């Protein structure tokens, strides 16, 4: 069983297999299940992700009305204009935000690794898919690769905003997506680790400050940041850019930063954006109308 990213990469390199394959073999052993059973279970998760994106692109709105509809706005913009950051990037942003719009509207999603950060992995997957044309198996493997790095992060640091701030949620999710994109694009296990490290480094210190304590503002848009950064980091790693600080040390830094974060910035809805004049006003409005 691997405990660190370094061990994960080493196991992949030693047997000359992909990160996803290391994760699949470990899961078969831990759960005492066949490859087919594990693939079938992950296929179900993939289907839920696909359905959530489809639902989002038809347009959703949360009970409070704070979020919803932005995924559609971006798709319309992409049809009518040429996005400055490119179609693939904006497609990922739209689908990542859309997944979280469905989540905020209490729809069905797959937590990756959490619900608040559920957009990054599927958003990027269903965007890069249009350029890389993966098989269904490769799409399922994408989730195993993302899961392998998330597994290391969850066991060595944390993945919840209440424990470690948004860096632990969207930071982890975006970084997991980076690693998975690299594998799907044909990069090496070490490049996956570098891409993961680069994304997480750029998310360090991000606090969890949801307005009115709801997984809406700023959570939906933070998934836009996580998914776009995931693609940029993956491209950097594929170009040969390395992380000067090794992946495991970045995870360690994320853990220590999270430990130093005050409670008000860890999913209590008390500090940061929640404590702005508008944030406070929205909270009053929402709970005044008894949601």
């Amino acid at each position, binding site marked *: *069983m691997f*405990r660190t990213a370094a061990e994960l990469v080493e196991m992949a390199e030693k047997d000359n297999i992909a990160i996803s394959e290391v*994760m699949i073999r*470990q*899961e078969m052993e*831990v*759960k005492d299940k066949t490859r087919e059973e594990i693939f079938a*279970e*992950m296929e179900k*998760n993939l289907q*839920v992700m696909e359905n959530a994106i489809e639902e989002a692109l038809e347009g959703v709105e949360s009970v409070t009305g704070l979020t919803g509809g932005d995924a559609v706005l971006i798709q319309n913009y992409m049809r009518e204009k040429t996005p400055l950051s490119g179609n693939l990037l904006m497609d990922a942003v739209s689908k990542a935000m859309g997944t979280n719009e*469905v*989540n*905020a*509207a*209490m*729809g*069905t*999603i*797959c*937590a*990756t*690794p*959490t*619900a*608040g950060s*559920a957009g990054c*992995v599927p958003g990027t997957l269903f965007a890069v898919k249009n350029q890389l044309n993966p098989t269904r198996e490769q799409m399922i493997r994408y*989730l*195993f690769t*993302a*899961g*392998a790095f*998330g*597994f290391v992060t*969850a*066991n060595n640091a*944390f*993945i*919840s*905003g*209440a*424990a470690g701030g948004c860096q*632990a949620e969207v930071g982890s999710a975006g970084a*997991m997506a980076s690693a998975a994109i690299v594998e799907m694009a044909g990069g090496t296990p070490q490049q996956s680790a570098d891409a993961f490290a680069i994304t997480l480094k750029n998310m360090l210190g991000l606090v969890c400050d*949801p307005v*009115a*304590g*709801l*997984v*809406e503002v700023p959570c939906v848009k933070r998934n836009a940041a996580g998914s776009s950064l995931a693609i940029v980091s993956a491209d950097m790693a594929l170009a040969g850019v390395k992380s000067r600080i090794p992946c495991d040390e970045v995870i360690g830094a994320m853990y220590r930063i999270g430990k130093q974060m005050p*409670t008000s910035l*860890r*999913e*209590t*809805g*008390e500090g940061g954006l929640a404590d702005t004049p508008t944030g406070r006003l929205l909270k009053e409005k*929402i*709970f005044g109308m008894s*949601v």
Partner: protein
Amino acid sequence: MKYNSVFDIIGPVMIGPSSSHTAGAARIGKAARNLFGKEPQWARIHLYESFAKTYKGHGTDFALAGGLLGFETDDTRMSQALELAEKKGLEIEFIEDSAKADHPNTARLIIGDGSDQLELVGISIGGGKVEITELNGFELRLSGNHPAILIMHNDRFGAIASVTEILAKYEINIGHMEVNRKDVGKEALMVIEVDQNVKDSILKELENASHIIQIAKIAN
């Protein structure tokens, strides 16, 4: 290690909006119901720290209710669970507790009906994963990664042997075992994590073993 499966990370499939505050809360509620062994008629739920501050926005209240009604994390009735509980005659009171807790997402559930009562503390550690840290005043650490049997028994010699003998007879392997007692000769709790699911017929046999008071099972 806290997380041992890729499906702890990619999953669960759930109704939004929060994996720790909604999916995790539902799982804590369901664990309490499973251990109680029947649908409770009332519940007093203490919420601490992040759970206490944000439970309304995150739907932690309806998720806990859903769990008590036996819902899985992806049950589409989840957001109506409070109304459904009321219809079924399950009275639930939420208490925002300002006491310090070891984990930011902690809930203490005291549930019961006319004859029985159960008290459980659960923590939601992230991504929908939960741990039960206390049961009826006994500290415990249940990962939920394996099926487990919880056995309330009298602290007497032979009580443990009578249980392990039955498990051995059915070739059930014990992966992890803990025994806690409140005082010498008083009520005690055995927590046994096993490698395979234990059939109800075996539980019945365990219940009839010497010095056993009550048995509950948590399936994987």
